[in-house]
């Protein structure tokens, strides 16, 4: 009985969540992409690096659904394995940018004396186009999987910080925060228990959009040859290496590109849907 009563709000919440068509569609597509990446060894018909020179540059067929590349490697298998790294990079970026963004945003929004310096720093950081800042950071730190994640994490942190700062400014003035302060609760407890918990929704929405941007940015960096090593299959490196054979084997470009579009689209749908849910005023407009 107790178990039923505690699960009910969760079920009701999920039902409300999935009543939004954008969230439902975005969640289904994203779940498929994530599942394909996790279950890659079970789904992929070939090993991602299995060479077969006799089968090089074969078009899509029943044996090779998305065709083969210049080394005869199966594009379908590679695209599934590439999803693992592309998703891993984007998740890492979301984690770093969220941690940095929350620290900067809460500090600027809660402590008045820190607001001006942090806000100006965020303005300065946001003056750099994302790809340009990321490639400069990768150039400085040296190209590797970890530095791509760190560079993009730093690049997108101000986006989260802005949202967190705005929400914290509003929260700070609310009676229950004032009450908590008046009761003599230490600042860190006020921040952890009352501010951070109430920031969860805007952070979740913004993190979804950062996830999508990170996926696009990682593809761009890999395509430019300044991202992860070209030996590692990501959708970006697949596009970069396929470019040379684009005229004779367009499938080398089409399928990894579609994988990016589909994943980013699912994240955008999810982000939009969640935002509408968090802010019903916006839902009325769309």
């Amino acid at each position, binding site marked *: 009985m107790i178990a039923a009563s505690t699960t009910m709000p969760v079920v009701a919440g999920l039902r409300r969540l999935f009543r939004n068509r954008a969230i439902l569609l975005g969640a289904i597509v994203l779940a498929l992409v994530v599942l394909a990446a996790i279950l890659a060894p079970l789904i992929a018909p070939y090993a991602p690096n299995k060479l077969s020179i006799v089968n090089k540059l074969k078009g899509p067929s029943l044996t090779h659904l998305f065709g083969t590349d210049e080394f005869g490697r199966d594009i379908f298998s590679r695209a599934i394995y590439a999803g693992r790294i592309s998703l891993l990079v984007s998740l890492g970026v979301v984690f770093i940018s969220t941690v940095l963004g929350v620290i900067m945003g809460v500090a600027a929004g809660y402590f008045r004396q820190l607001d001006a310096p942090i806000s100006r720093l965020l303005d300065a950081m946001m003056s750099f186009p994302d790809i*340009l800042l990321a490639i400069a*950071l990768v*150039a400085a730190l040296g190209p590797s999987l970890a530095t791509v994640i760190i560079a993009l994490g730093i690049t997108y942190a101000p986006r989260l910080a802005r949202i967190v700062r705005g929400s914290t400014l509003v929260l700070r003035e609310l009676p229950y925060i004032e009450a908590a302060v008046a009761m003599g609760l230490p600042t860190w407890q006020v921040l952890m228990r009352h501010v951070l918990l109430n920031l969860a929704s805007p952070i979740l929405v913004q993190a979804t959009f950062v996830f999508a941007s990170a996926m696009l940015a990682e593809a761009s960096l890999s395509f430019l040859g300044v991202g992860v090593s070209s030996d590692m299959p990501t959708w970006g490196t697949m596009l970069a290496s396929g470019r040379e054979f684009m005229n004779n084997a367009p499938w080398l470009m089409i399928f990894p590109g579609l994988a990016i579009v589909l994943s980013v689209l699912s994240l955008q749908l999810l982000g939009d849907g969640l935002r509408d849910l968090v802010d019903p005023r916006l839902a009325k407009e769309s």
Partner: protein
Amino acid sequence: MARISWGLLHRLGGMLIVLALVVTVVFIIVRVTPGDPAAVMLGSDATPEDIAQLRSRMGLDAPLIVQYGQFVGGILRGDLGQSIFLNHPVTQALAARAEPTFFLTLFSILIAVAIALPVGVLSAVRRGTLFDQIVVTLTMVAASVPSFWLGLMLIQVFAVGTGWFPASGYGGPDTPFLERLHHLVLPAVALGVVNSALITRFTRAAMLDVLGEDYVRTARAKGANERRVILKHALKNALIPIITVIGLSVAMLVAGAVVTETVFGLPGVGNLVVSAVLRRDYPVIQGTLLVVAAIYVLINFIVDMLYILVDPRVRL
């Protein structure tokens, strides 16, 4: 008038602080390189003498605070340093590459606005119709497409397939201007279409906001024709958020230009910075970052100024 001047000075001061921070961030980025940037740039074959010589040429042997002073002093004199590989000043390298990037960005923004304004307005006016739903879906898809991938697809169809446009290059200084612009059509369309998605969505949202306002209802009640209501009463009031997002999208366009120039082999600033990264030519990377960020800060300042022209209620 006095209030405007004070407001203007305040904004100007804010802009200068942000510019100073931009300079500092750029200075720090190059200095976070693990190890010695001079050794990294010269590679494993370099002798200790070569490294010491480059360190002194780049000013890396001085204390950090002196380096910062020299860096800021150089910028104030218009000196962004010397490219290590091109062996000429960074400003000269940037100036030589500015034209394709400038026109690419300009045409992309024109294409984006030309698509976004009418489509966004119409979509808001016909809210809930099939047209509106198609627009909402298409903008979502367009925002998910990497502009460089769209560029590659356009090359396949319109350069390799039909041969209407060149697949790459820009032509030399002797190439007629129109011929050079012809090279920019596909990259500008690739960038413009992707960026139109964001502007369309903002235009639609801004129009939906103002279409529900009392003054729009009053204008309709007065019997003003629908075209006048939409263009004069609604669009004019929706322009502020639209101008803001157009200003913001310039930064996105520059980011997109970096990759798009590489796809189309355009000898622009994006191409310069990518080759600088591959060669670890730090002065070029730092100079480009600085100039692009400064342009962005200036554009935002100009956008702020445009608000007064668009909306007399806005006070600076």
